[in-house]
């Protein structure tokens, strides 16, 4: 079932159809989300206006984890089933995930100064998120470290699978250890600790980040597929 969609040409066809829709969804949800976050949501009872950083920081953090999980899933399919599309997807997703991680760290730092009183502390949550950035950088550089692309793909996939160990640590660090970072607000769907009027902008922003990520990934996968086709043509010409 999955393998039917793992065909690069099929991917190109489906993504070409979806791309414009995703673009429209992204634009609408991004503009509406920013309007809600900055103009149409209340300040927090404790933090005041500073709470608006949450609408950027939290989706970035979620996607930094989600994109890593998708890289690891691709790594599994690449190593066991040798799917070219999975190799391509790892190369396409890794830089985007790294960007989200950097955005999480920077916005978190800007949020930390006025609320906690410090830009950075070495508590478990912040440190494990920094380790996630190093994992992304490792995957990107490993996949480009070898003469042959397939060798780079293989080692990057292996590193992505080893790095899974960091995901539960990031997620539950705030519950397992004493940290300066507060525990998760939306771990329980029935009664989140965020009031509804603040939950809606957060949800809309997350949606816009989802469509943005999907489209960036589609563009990157497409160009990588084309690049590989060019490489094949070039090598056959020489021979």
């Amino acid at each position, binding site marked *: 079932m999955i393998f039917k969609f793992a065909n690069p040409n099929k991917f190109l066809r489906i993504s070409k159809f979806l791309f414009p829709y995703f673009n429209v969804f992204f634009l609408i949800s991004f503009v509406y989300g920013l309007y809600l976050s900055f103009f149409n949501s*209340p300040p*927090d*009872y404790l933090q005041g206006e500073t709470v608006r950083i949450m609408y950027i920081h939290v989706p970035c953090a979620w996607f930094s984890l989600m994109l890593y999980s998708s890289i690891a899933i691709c790594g599994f399919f690449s190593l066991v089933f040798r799917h070219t599309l999975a190799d391509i997807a790892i190369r396409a997703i890794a830089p985007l995930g790294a960007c989200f991680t950097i955005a999480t760290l920077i916005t978190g730092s800007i949020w930390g100064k006025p*609320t*906690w009183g410090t830009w950075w502390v070495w508590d478990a949550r912040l440190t494990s998120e920094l380790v996630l950035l190093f994992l992304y950088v490792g995957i990107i550089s490993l996949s480009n470290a070898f003469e042959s692309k397939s060798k780079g793909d293989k080692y990057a996939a292996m590193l992505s699978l*080893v790095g899974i160990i960091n995901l539960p640590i990031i997620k539950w660090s705030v519950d397992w250890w*004493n940290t300066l970072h507060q525990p998760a607000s939306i771990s329980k769907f029935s009664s989140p600790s965020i*009031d509804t009027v603040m939950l809606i902008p957060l949800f809309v922003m997350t949606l816009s980040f989802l469509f943005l990520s999907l489209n960036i990934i589609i563009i990157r996968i497409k160009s990588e597929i084309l690049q590989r086709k060019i490489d094949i043509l070039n090598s056959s010409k020489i021979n």
Partner: protein
Amino acid sequence: MKKKNKRLKTLLLFLVPIFTGATIIFYNLKDNMVFFYSPTEILDKSDEIKSFVRLGGMVKKGSVSKENTFFNGANVEEVSFIITDFKNEIEVKYIGILPDLFKEEQGVVVQGNIDEMKVMRATEVLAKHDENYMPPEIEAIESIKEKINDI
């Protein structure tokens, strides 16, 4: 199909020991991964903890007071307050700027040395906030509800 099974087996043989090892390491590091200790933990371990330590808990209601003292030849304001985990409490003295979110009955993490009188001489005070976010009006309603429940 057989080749795939073999690759899956190799992958598992590679990953399972790594994950098991990491789990064991993190499980045993438990006490060393904490960012701060509670007052109870500090009083229990007061013989081991001699120097620089982080202490976290709630600022006790009505415990914050300010007085003028001499520090490095200048007349400065010293803040003192009590950190509690509702079992034990430790007094903290601090000279410096407090974060905006520093309030009574709010979480706080302080860094410093504990003297022989069991008083914390803090060099840094960080505010810790919880996972609840709500507009001020809702907070007012919630606190009224709590007061009614108390009666």
